[in-house]
C-alpha cells in the first residue's frame, strides 16, 4: 500500500515538474536512449552520470567562455591543460614538461610535450598554447587574465608567458585553461570542440545529455571508461532515475541522505565547497548611489568574534546536513595555503562575555542592546537554495541563545550582492586557487573589499607580496600570513569580517559495483568535479 501511494506521488511529482516546462526536465520522463543501447553481460566500460541542469555548459566547451574555468572549476576532459592540480592540491604536469619563472616573476617559461596530437590528427604545438592564452585573455568572460600581458612561442615546444605584474600562482591558472587548436577554433568551437584530452565529445542534446567517448590516441594512460554519458536533471528527478536504475551515478543532497536505494550506495566526498556569512565591518552609511553600506551592529569587531565562537558548527552540520559536512574556519580549509590558526572551538560563554564586554547587554526580552540599538541581524540567503535556507535558519536559532535576534530572508541574486554590503548573506565559495582569499579580503580601489565592506592594509600587503613571490612555496607562507600573522589578519583574533560555517560534502548515489576513483577535495559547485578522473573509474 505504502509503495502504491509513493508511486502515485512520484507520478504526480513528474507530472508537476513537466508542467513547469523547463527544457531540462524531459529526461526525467524515462526515455534514456543510452541506457538501452548497452550491450548486456559484456564487460562494461561505460557509465551514465546525472548532474544538475545548471551544470550544462551554457556556451559549450570553449575554455574562453567558462568550460572548466570560472566559478566552478574542473578538469576540461576534452582538452589538455598545461598543469594539473594533484590530489593534495599541489601542482602537477599535464602538457608541461618543465616550467620556470624569472627572478622578477615577470616571465614564465613552459616547455611542453611534443608527442601530443589533437583528435583531428594535427600535432599540438607551442603555437596552439599561445593562441589559446591570447584568446582567453582577449575573450574570457569568466576569468581574470589581466595579469597576463601576452603569450609568445619561443620555439615549437617552448612558450613564454610575459606578465603585466608578478603572479606567483600562475600554475593554478594554467590548470584550468584547456588548450584549443588554432586551426580548428572559431565561433562554433563551443559546440564542436576539438581537443587533445582524454575524451571526445560525441553528441550533445541540449537540455538533456552529453556523450563522451574515449580518445583512442590519448598520449597518457588510456581511459578505462570508454563512454561517459552525462544527463542533466533536477535533484528529485536524479533520485527517481536512480530508483529506476537508469543512471550509474547521480548527484544528490543531504536531504536525501536518509533514503536507501537497492543496488546503490551513498558516496560522500569532502570538499572546500564552503558556506559562510559576511559581516560588514564598517558602520552603516549611504554610498553615492543611495545604497546602504555597512552595519552598525557587526561593525563592532567583538560582535563578529562573539558570533564566530558562539556558533556550534557541529550541531549545524548535524541539523542541516545530516552530518555530511565538515566544520569550516576559512574559505580554503585543508588547502596548502590554509592557516590552521583560523580554527576556533565553540564557546557560548566566551561569546556572551565578549558581547557583555562590548557593551551589548541583555534587555528585558532577552535580546541584547547597546545605546538603544537592539542586537538584530537579518540574514539573507539565495531563495530556492534549501541548504542555505536551513543553514540560515539554524544560525538564527543559535544566535538567539546568544541574545541576538536574527531574521532570515530569501533574496534573488539580482539584489543579493548589493544588499550583502549592509547585511550578512549566506555565501558559498571554495576553489582550487588562493585567489579566492584575494577576491574576498583584498581592498579594491574604492577602499573596501568587493563583497563585504572591509579593508586591512597589512592583509592586503601580504597578499600582494604572495603574488610577487618567486616560488609557490614562499607564496603559500605569505597567503597564510595574510590570514593571520600573529598580530593581525582575518581570523578570530584578527578582524574576522567573514564567518565560515561548514564545508558541504558532495553526495552521490552510485551503483555498488562502480568503482569511483579517489577524489581531490571538490571545489564549490556540485557538478563536473566528480568526473575529473572518470577515465580511471571501472566496474567491479
Amino acid at each position: 500500500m505504502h509503495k502504491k501511494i509513493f508511486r502515485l506521488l512520484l507520478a504526480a511529482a513528474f507530472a508537476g515538474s513537466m508542467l513547469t516546462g523547463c527544457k531540462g526536465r524531459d529526461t526525467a520522463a524515462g526515455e534514456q536512449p543510452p541506457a538501452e543501447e548497452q550491450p548486456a553481460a559484456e564487460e562494461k566500460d561505460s557509465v551514465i552520470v546525472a548532474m544538475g541542469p545548471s551544470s550544462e555548459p551554457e556556451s559549450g566547451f570553449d575554455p574562453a567562455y567558462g568550460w572548466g574555468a570560472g566559478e566552478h572549476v574542473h578538469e576540461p576532459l576534452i582538452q589538455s591543460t598545461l598543469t594539473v592540480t594533484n590530489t593534495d592540491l599541489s601542482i602537477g604536469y599535464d602538457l608541461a614538461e618543465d616550467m620556470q619563472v624569472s627572478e622578477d616573476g615577470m616571465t614564465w617559461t613552459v616547455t611542453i610535450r611534443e608527442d601530443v596530437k589533437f583528435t583531428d590528427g594535427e600535432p599540438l604545438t607551442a603555437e596552439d598554447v599561445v593562441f589559446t592564452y591570447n584568446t582567453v585573455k582577449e575573450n574570457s568572460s569568466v576569468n581574470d587574465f589581466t595579469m597576463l600581458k601576452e603569450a609568445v612561442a619561443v620555439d615549437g615546444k617552448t612558450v613564454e608567458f610575459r606578465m603585466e605584474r608578478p603572479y606567483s600562482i600562475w600554475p593554478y591558472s594554467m590548470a584550468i585553461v584547456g588548450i584549443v587548436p588554432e586551426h580548428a577554433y572559431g565561433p562554433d568551437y563551443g559546440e564542436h570542440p576539438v581537443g587533445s584530452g582524454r575524451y571526445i565529445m560525441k553528441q550533445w542534446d541540449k537540455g538533456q545529455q552529453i556523450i563522451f567517448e574515449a580518445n583512442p590516441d590519448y598520449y597518457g594512460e588510456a581511459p578505462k571508461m570508454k563512454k561517459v554519458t552525462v544527463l542533466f536533471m533536477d535533484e528529485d528527478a536524479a533520485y527517481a532515475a536512480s530508483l529506476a536504475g537508469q543512471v550509474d551515478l547521480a548527484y544528490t543532497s543531504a536531504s536525501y541522505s536518509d533514503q536507501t536505494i537497492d543496488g546503490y550506495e551513498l558516496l560522500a566526498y569532502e570538499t572546500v565547497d564552503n558556506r559562510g556569512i559576511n559581516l560588514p565591518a564598517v558602520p552603516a552609511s549611504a554610498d553615492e548611489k543611495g545604497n546602504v553600506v555597512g552595519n552598525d551592529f557587526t561593525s563592532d569587531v567583538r560582535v563578529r568574534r562573539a558570533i564566530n565562537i558562539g556558533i556550534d558548527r557541529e550541531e549545524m552540520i548535524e541539523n542541516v546536513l545530516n552530518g555530511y559536512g565538515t566544520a569550516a574556519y576559512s574559505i580554503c580549509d585543508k588547502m596548502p595555503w590554509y592557516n590552521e590558526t583560523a580554527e576556533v572551538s565553540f564557546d557560548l560563554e566566551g561569546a556572551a562575555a565578549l558581547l557583555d564586554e562590548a557593551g551589548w547587554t541583555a534587555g528585558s526580552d532577552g535580546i541584547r542592546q547597546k545605546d538603544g540599538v537592539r542586537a538584530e541581524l537579518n540574514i539573507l540567503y539565495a531563495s530556492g537554495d534549501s541548504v542555505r535556507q536551513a543553514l540560515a535558519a539554524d544560525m538564527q536559532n543559535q544566535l538567539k541563545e546568544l541574545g541576538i535576534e536574527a531574521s532570515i530572508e530569501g533574496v534573488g541574486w539580482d539584489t543579493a550582492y548589493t544588499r550583502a554590503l549592509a547585511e550578512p548573506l549566506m555565501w558559498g565559495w571554495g576553489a582550487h586557487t588562493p585567489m579566492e582569499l584575494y577576491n574576498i579580503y583584498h581592498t579594491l580601489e574604492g577602499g573596501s573589499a568587493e563583497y563585504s565592506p572591509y579593508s586591512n592594509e597589512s592583509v592586503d600587503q601580504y597578499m600582494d607580496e604572495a603574488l610577487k613571490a618567486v616560488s609557490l612555496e614562499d607564496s603559500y607562507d605569505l597567503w597564510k600570513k595574510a590570514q593571520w600573522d600573529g598580530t593581525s589578519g582575518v581570523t578570530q583574533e584578527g578582524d574576522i569580517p567573514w564567518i565560515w560555517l561548514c564545508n558541504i560534502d558532495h553526495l552521490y548515489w552510485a551503483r555498488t559495483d562502480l568503482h569511483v576513483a579517489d577524489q581531490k577535495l571538490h571545489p564549490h559547485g556540485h557538478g563536473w568535479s566528480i568526473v575529473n578522473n572518470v577515465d580511471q573509474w571501472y566496474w567491479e
Partner: protein
Amino acid sequence: MKRVNGRIMTVFFFALAVLFLAAVTAAGWVFSEEALVTDFSRKNLGPGLQYLFGTDWLGRDMFIRTLTGLSMSIRIGILAAGVSSVLALLLGTMAATMGKTVDAVITWVIDLVMGIPHILLLILISYALGKGLKGVVVGVALTHWTSLARVIRGEVMQLKEALYIRTARKLGVGGFEIAWKHMFPHLFPQFLVGLILTFPHAILHEASITFLGFGLSPEQPAVGIILSESMKYLAMGRWWLALFPGLFLVFTVVLFDVAGENLRRLMDPGSVHI
C-alpha cells in the same frame, strides 16, 4: 418539527463559509510568529496528534504554516478583489455614461487586458514592482477587473434607458445623484457577487505566481511557497507537505464559491423567495 426551507439552508451555508474563512484568517494572524519558527529536533515528522499536518525539513509545523499561509492568501484576496472590483465599478460606469470616446477607450483597455493571458500579465506586473506583497496585490488587482467591468457597463447601459432613470433625468436630477441614488442600488448585488467570486481567482493566482517564484518571498508561509517547496520532497515520500496545504487551498477556494453562490441566491430577486 418545522421543515428547514431553502432560504434558511442558504443562509446557513453562507454563514458557515464566512465563519470558516474568518476563523482561518484570525488563526493566521495569531500564529504569524510561530509559523516562522524552525526547530531541527522535530524535522520531517509525519502527520500525527502533535503536528496535525506533519513538519518539514526545517522542523516547521505545517498545520500552523498552512493556516498562516491561507490567512495571508485570504487577506491578499480581499485586498486584491476589493481593489479590482472598485476599479471595475468605476470604469464600467464611466464607460456606460461618459460618451462614446470614453467607452471606446475603456472597452479597448478591457479587450487588451483580457487578450493577454492572466498569469503572464500578473508575472510582468509583479516582477516590475519588485515582487513581494505589493507586486502580488497590484498584479492581481490589475488583471481581474475586466469581466466585472464588462458586466457593469452592460447593466448601466440598460439602466440608462430605464423609464425611472429617464424620468429622473427629465425632472432635472444631476448625473452623479442618478448614478449613486438610482443606479448603484440596482448594481449592488452584481457588484457584491462579482467581488466575492473574484476572491478564489485572486487566491489561486497569488498561489500560482508565488509557486513560480514571482510572488511572495520564500521565507514567508504562503501556500504557493509551501507547495513549491514540497515538490522536491514528494519523491522522498513526504506526501503530507503537499497534500494538506493543497487540500486546504482547494477547500478555501470552494468555500468562497459557496459563499458567493449562496449570497447571489439570497439577493437575486429571481430566487430570493425559494
